[in-house]
């Protein structure tokens, strides 16, 4: 279970990333954030967001049309 869940379903680029950034910086270092999104562009975008910011993408799954990402806040 992630420490917090962000429901970004129905939101389009770049809102899921912007909301995820806000949510993850509110967590303590090492805290985990689960993001649910329906924007298919989010798959590539969360990978790029993770590589650039260093917040680790520790899980990524798809259920139906919902993409689920779990990010871990970096130090």
């Amino acid at each position, binding site marked *: 279970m992630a420490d917090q869940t962000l429901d970004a379903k129905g939101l389009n680029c*770049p809102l899921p990333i912007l909301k995820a950034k806000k949510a993850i910086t509110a967590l303590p270092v090492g805290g985990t954030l689960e993001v649910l999104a329906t924007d298919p562009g989010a798959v590539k975008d969360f990978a790029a967001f993770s590589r650039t910011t260093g917040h680790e993408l520790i899980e990524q799954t798809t259920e139906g049309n919902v993409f689920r990402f779990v990010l871990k806040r970096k130090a």
Partner: protein
Amino acid sequence: MADASGAQSMSIIVTKGTLDWAYPPMILSTTAAAMGLNVTLFFTFYGLTLLLKDPKLRMSPLGNPAMKMPMMGGHLGLPNIMSMIPGVDAGATVMMQDMMKKKGVASFEELRSLALESDVRMIACQMTMDLFEYTLDDMIPGIELGGAATYIEVATQSEINLFI
């Protein structure tokens, strides 16, 4: 170049003030800021419109053959002679705004607030402010004035420099 904290930088010269062209600078600046970059936007000519307190952004299909709206399963463009009719711009603008709302695209105002909130630096070009007779009172708070040299200094310190 990365600053003392290791953050990279991006600058964008914003020259357009229609609803459609308002999006790329706002989307890129908010996203870059979310990814840890220092971002500066330099607004000049029609880009200044994006800084107005009440921008009332519009768009036009006139002279824009690429603007084809999804309609009844296809895509519909308008011949220029029809785009000239009064009210067509307003109609196209409303249609675009409805479409954006339905598809979960942020409004321009929402993105602009998010940009300011994430410390995107916004510089209004002093020369074009004078040219079009705008004052800082016409503009949203939190912006600054500057000229070409101010922008060039920012650009020399940025990895990414775009012109939109």
